[in-house]
């Protein structure tokens, strides 16, 4: 039981550390932003937009 | 040319060896030689077969000329004769050019060489030579000779010749000590070449080349003439068409090419005379001079300079007028430049700047000081016209100074003092820390009327003046910084701009930052100018940390408030409605519409409004200290006098685009304000 309480914060710490990397550069948001700009610059119709914008977490 | 003679000699050596070591085997003579090698030429697996029918066949398994390799080279002679006095090949065929006929003969005693290659379409290559050691000469006569057959002479990294024909003659002569004379007289037609990516290519080139060189002792004296008559050339980033010509003469001592005089015809631009010393081993210009008069600046700039300036602020510019130029270059640096400008000008395609009718006689030297007087007839800066003027520029090497100058702008004038321009390295971090031009000056702007400025800028007509006293404006290669203040006398009050800094000034989206302090603006004048319902009183405003990008607000912290002091304070019913409508459909003022209808004007005690703009959202507030109402409401107008009115806002955040659109609707007055 005691071990569990020690392990939990450590796991949380590890998790937050892991998330920090994720935050360091928001890849999904950047892809979304890139797609938005690309559509405008290339004046693409929404219809030919491939459904590849993945929601990552 | 030396290369050609070398090949000829090597060919002779080959024949010589054939003679010495052939051997009989059965009814056919076969001779094999392992290798013949020299620095530029190497042949291996050589086999000569002489059947008894009088023919001959020469096979070379591998032939290397320079960096090129040919495999299985085969020459067949239908009639081959070899006697102690002569070697001859009649009705020969070269496998590489199957439809051409090859003939050659060489007399051992006479040392006469005759060779010819005839191909369909009237193409012929004829070589005749007298190859005596003491005095040899070689002539190559070409008629419709396909240029691509010479590809093997060019280094492999050069563009590949696809078509074209040569007609003319090439002569070489010499003695035991080497070549003594060379002459070329060739006409080139319909020549094209290109490298794989098409960045270095030409089509339908036509022209004439004549060149002669004679050796005296160790020195070659040469003269040449190249006329490029037709066709087009793209040599990234230059695009040139026919009409160019070059003629010149000079000498060559094995290390340095001395161009004693050369004349270059640049179509549309004029003539340029050149002299120079070109070092051959390090391929560098040791010394050179350039001279041209009446050069057309428009053609010169657009054809020869602009393609290289695709990134700078000059990439969109056009030049006008004429110039006389004399420049002298030595030891890696420009030493002197004499530039006479005749009615010259420059203007930017996006109308940011223009300077026209420039006349000047500039005599610049790297190691001496001088003064240039530059007269100009006028111009424009950011849409505002500039009047005629004269600048005296002190020059000392790469330092330029204008102690005093003035620019007539609209009805005022910008007086510059201590303008300094010099080249210095950028402080790190920077792009390779290459030197960039830095400049700085101090200036005062004598009053320009605001109605002229607003006309030029397309703003509502404002009265008042703009004046400024600027201790220092500087540019360090990145940003333009303004120390001191710009003072606008507008609306009977003052607007002072401080801490101005313009980053990426010549980029796509210039970024301006600074602070504005407005004092005692007359609300009556202000509301009239922008046709916002009438208000009376005085207003102060502070805009801090203002950031404009592409001249659009990016972020700022603005606060408007009633000026201190005693003065009449009145607000019209229309203004109240307009202020209320700025809150949008979700915003409302704590006012009664029925009550509003009775009075035209109301009294007030103070006005206050603030907006902190970030990421396109304006966080609003009211008169300072009125935020404590708990409900999130704030006072924009606090009532006072009779009849009094208080305007409350409760919507704290609004999109900046939305707010400016509403303001536009209100000031244009053609939309009815919506009061809820």
């Amino acid at each position, binding site marked *: 039981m005691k071990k569990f309480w020690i392990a939990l914060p450590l796991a949380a710490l590890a998790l937050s550390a892991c998330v920090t990397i994720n935050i360091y550069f928001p890849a999904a948001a950047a892809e979304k932003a890139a797609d938005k700009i690309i559509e405008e610059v*290339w004046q693409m119709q929404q219809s030919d937009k491939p459904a590849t914008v993945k929601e990552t977490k | 040319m030396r290369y050609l003679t070398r090949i000829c000699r090597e060919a002779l050596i080959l024949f010589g060896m054939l003679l010495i070591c052939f051997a009989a085997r059965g009814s056919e003579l076969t001779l094999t030689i392992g290798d013949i090698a020299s620095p530029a030429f190497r042949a291996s697996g050589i086999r000569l077969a002489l059947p008894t029918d009088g023919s001959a066949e020469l096979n070379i398994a591998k032939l290397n000329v320079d960096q090129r390799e040919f495999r299985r080279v085969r020459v067949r002679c239908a009639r081959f004769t070899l006697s102690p006095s002569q070697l001859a090949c009649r009705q020969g065929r070269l496998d590489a050019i199957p439809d051409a006929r090859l003939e050659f003969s060489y007399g051992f005693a006479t040392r006469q060489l005759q060779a010819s290659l005839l191909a369909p379409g009237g193409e012929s290559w004829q070589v005749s030579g007298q190859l005596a050691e003491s005095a040899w000469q070689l002539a190559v006569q070409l008629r419709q000779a396909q240029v691509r057959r010479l590809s093997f002479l060019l280094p492999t990294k050069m563009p590949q010749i696809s078509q074209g024909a040569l007609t003319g003659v090439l002569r070489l002569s010499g003695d035991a000590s080497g070549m003594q004379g060379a002459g070329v007289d060739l006409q080139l037609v319909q020549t094209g070449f290109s490298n794989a990516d098409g960045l270095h290519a030409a089509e339908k080139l036509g022209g004439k080349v004549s060149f002669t060189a004679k050796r005296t002792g160790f020195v070659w004296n040469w003269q040449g003439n190249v006329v490029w008559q037709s066709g087009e050339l793209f040599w990234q980033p230059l695009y040139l068409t026919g009409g160019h010509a070059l003629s010149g003469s000079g000498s060559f001592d094995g290390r340095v090419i001395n161009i004693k005089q050369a004349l270059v015809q640049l179509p549309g631009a004029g003539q340029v005379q050149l002299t120079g010393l070109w070092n051959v081993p390090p391929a560098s210009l040791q010394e050179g001079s350039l001279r041209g008069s009446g050069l057309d600046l428009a053609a010169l700039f657009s054809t020869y300079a602009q393609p290289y300036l695709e990134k700078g602020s000059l990439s969109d510019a056009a030049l006008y007028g004429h110039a006389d130029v004399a420049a002298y270059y030595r030891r890696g640096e420009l030493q002197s430049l004499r530039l006479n400008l005749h009615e010259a000008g420059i203007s930017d395609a996006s109308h940011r700047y223009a300077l026209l009718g420039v006349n000047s006689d500039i005599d610049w030297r790297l190691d001496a000081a001088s003064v240039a007087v530059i007269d100009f007839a006028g111009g424009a800066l950011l849409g505002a016209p500039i009047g005629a003027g004269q600048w005296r520029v002190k020059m000392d090497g790469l330092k330029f100074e204008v102690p005093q100058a003035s620019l007539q702008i609209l009805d005022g004038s910008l007086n510059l003092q201590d303008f300094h321009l010099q080249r210095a390295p950028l402080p790190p971090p920077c792009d390779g820390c290459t030197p960039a031009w830095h400049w700085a000056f101090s200036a005062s702007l004598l009053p320009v009327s605001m109605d002229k400025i607003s006309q030029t800028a397309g703003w509502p007509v404002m009265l008042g003046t703009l004046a400024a006293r600027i201790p220092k404006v500087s540019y360090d290669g990145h940003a333009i910084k303004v120390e001191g203040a710009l003072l606008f006398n507008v609306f009977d009050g003052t607007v002072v701009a401080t801490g101005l800094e313009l980053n990426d000034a010549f980029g796509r989206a210039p970024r301006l930052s600074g602070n504005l302090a407005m004092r005692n603006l007359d609300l009556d004048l202000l509301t009239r100018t922008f046709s916002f319902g009438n208000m009376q009183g005085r207003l102060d405003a502070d805009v801090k940390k203002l950031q404009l990008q592409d001249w659009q607000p990016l972020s700022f912290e603005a606060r408007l408030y009633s000026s201190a002091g005693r003065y009449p304070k009145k607000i019209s019913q229309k203004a109240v409605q307009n202020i209320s409508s700025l809150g949008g459909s979700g915003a409302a003022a704590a006012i009664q519409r029925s009550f509003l209808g009775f009075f035209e004007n109301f009294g007030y005690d103070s006005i206050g409004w603030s907006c902190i703009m970030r990421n396109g959202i304006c966080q609003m507030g009211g008169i300072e200290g009125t935020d404590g109402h708990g409900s999130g409401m704030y006072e924009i107008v606090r009532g006072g006098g009779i009849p009094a009115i208080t305007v409350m806002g409760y919507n704290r955040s609004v999109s900046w685009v939305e707010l400016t659109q509403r303001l536009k609707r209100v000031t244009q007055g053609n939309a009815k304000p919506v009061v809820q």
Partner: protein
Amino acid sequence: MKKLLRYTTAMLTLTVSLNVMAAADLEVNTPGVNAIKSSMQARHAQLSAYYASGAVGLTADGMIALRDASAVPMAARQSVNALVAAENQDRGALYAEIANANAHPEWQAEIRSTFGQRWIQRAQPGWWVQSNGGWMQK
């Protein structure tokens, strides 16, 4: 024990809030981005024909390159060259501007590489794109 629990919860809360931040959109609606975007939009009308003919291709690093100038008449090569240079200048400015607008100038390289992948992925069939250092046609 209770303290530990609170500590853990705080940790988790922090994690969650950070996650939210990561999911948020990137700010791309600044005057700078808009100015660059409209300049690129205007240029695209001229460039699209060159993408289609293969004269210009999309590079893996989010730029464009003159791939095969011989697909363009000689007299037009200089202007294609200038278009490519101007487009690349805008693209570089765009990536820097997005990074700056989000207050993370150090993201510039990653933004560029994200854009590099997206431009290529969204390219029309027939256009030339760079992959593994070589050119291939989509």
